[in-house]
């Protein structure tokens, strides 16, 4: 257990050394928010309706701000690509030799990474949410907040194991990076990062979209916070989310087992 803690400690240090440009790039990332706000303002004012698919203008903006928080937990930059590269280049070998579990190692690294990322992002995020406080009409109850935090944990777990599975496909597929690119692009839309999933009600795919694992990466936590999910629905949604988490967890174990077996069979 100790070794995982040390790994976590090291990657935390790594993250903190880039504090300077980090603040700058966090700031940069929020400028497009202005464009989104103006765009949706135009849409709402010309539609002459206060609510579109159950979202008011303020709620749409609040949603777009909140998905940033969901993504803070569920995005795993470099996880799949680095894993794919390690498999391709053979550095995976050490996991056959050393008494350390690959996925466990990756998990400790990620948790530390996330902790550092979140703690260093606090200041820019507080500034952002502070200046946009007017968009938040309602706040969730303490129970709602608890559910919100749970959904963020869920987003992390699903995001992590999903990317691990993708990365490990490189045991069998050569060009995993391009495949990753396709999946990331799809995920961007299907997770509700670009637009609240509810607004896609006219497409007829809404029910499917809400049950896909992608929805848990961005949409779900934001929707909970904005109280868009009714109480009876909430438990069902969590249940499905946990099933997805379990599914990817097991899948990653299975892939790792067969992948390592293939590796030792061919001597990499």
């Amino acid at each position, binding site marked *: 257990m100790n070794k995982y803690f040390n790994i976590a400690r090291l990657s935390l240090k790594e993250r903190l050394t880039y504090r300077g440009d980090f603040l700058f790039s966090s700031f*940069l990332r929020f400028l497009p928010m202005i464009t989104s706000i103006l765009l949706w303002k*135009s849409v709402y004012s010309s539609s002459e309706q206060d609510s579109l698919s159950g979202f008011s203008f303020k709620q749409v903006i609040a949603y777009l701000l909140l998905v940033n928080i969901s993504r803070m937990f569920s995005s795993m930059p470099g996880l799949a690509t680095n894993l794919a590269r390690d498999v391709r280049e053979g550095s995976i070998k050490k996991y056959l030799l050393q008494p350390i579990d690959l996925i466990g190692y990756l998990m400790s690294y990620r948790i530390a990474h996330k902790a550092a990322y979140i703690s260093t992002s606090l200041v820019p995020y507080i500034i952002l949410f502070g200046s946009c406080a007017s968009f938040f009409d309602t706040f969730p109850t303490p129970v709602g907040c608890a559910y919100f935090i749970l959904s963020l944990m869920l987003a992390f777990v699903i995001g992590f194991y999903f990317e691990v599975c993708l990365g490990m496909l490189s045991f069998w597929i050569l*060009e995993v990076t391009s495949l990753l690119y396709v999946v990331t692009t799809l995920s961007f839309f299907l997770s509700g990062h670009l637009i609240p999933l509810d607004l896609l009600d006219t497409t007829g795919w809404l029910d499917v979209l809400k049950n896909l694992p992608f929805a848990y990466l961005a949409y779900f936590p934001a929707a909970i916070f904005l109280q868009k999910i009714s109480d009876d629905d909430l438990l069902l949604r969590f249940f499905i989310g946990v099933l997805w988490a379990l599914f990817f967890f097991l899948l990653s174990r299975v892939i790792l087992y067969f992948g390592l077996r293939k590796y030792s069979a061919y001597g990499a």
Partner: protein
Amino acid sequence: MLRHLRLMFCFAKFSLLGELAFRSNFLLKILVELIWLGILLTFFKTIFGKSSNVAGWNEHEFLFFVGAYYALEGFVETFFLENCVEFSELVRSGNLDFCLLKPIDPQFFITLRRVDWSTAPKILLGFIMISFAMYEIGKPLELWKVPLFLILFLCGCSLAYSFLLLLTALSVWMIRNQSLMEVWWLFTNLMRYPRQIYDSEWALPIRMVFGFIIPALLAVSIPVEFAVKEINIEFTLFLFVIAVVYFQLSRMFFNYSLKYYRSASS
């Protein structure tokens, strides 16, 4: 001039051969572009399912805009983006020297030597969207407008190129090119929607800075307005002039940064 065209042809040919060597990669990249197009159009359709116009642009005019933006983005990504991103790597590794040794203009060589064929379909698809939008609008585009629209479109592309070049030249001083991509993405964000969106009061500073000083807001808006909305003579002329000015400025700055590289590299 002819020689430069022949060289372009060479660059295009060899880039294509290089990309086809990794066929599945190439096809997947094209697939990604198509998915993005799908996302873009779904977003567009969703918005216009809820509202009949956005900032004074009706559905068909907006589609024209989306097509023009997509084509411009495709144009810049196909011819310039990859080369500009590679520039900071050239500086870091010292391989920039090889580019400077060739009996050819460095800016031409560095910014055009690779053609990204996987994004080239965007240009065609963008123009298909434009044609479709025209068809939906009903009345055909006046003949005299077509060449002028294309010129204005190229002015917009040139403006985007000049901005990209300015960012690229900075790599000589700052080796990190991650920020380059982020700042570029911010720029494209401003080109992405009609400028009338920024018409509210508190957006005045944005309109001032990005409408006149770094006129990203005009790059796509003005050509499209020229084609399908009321023609704004002042802005149209302004776009043309500022595109030429920025081209010159960015070229001067780029050459200046190369001079700096040549006095400082060891």
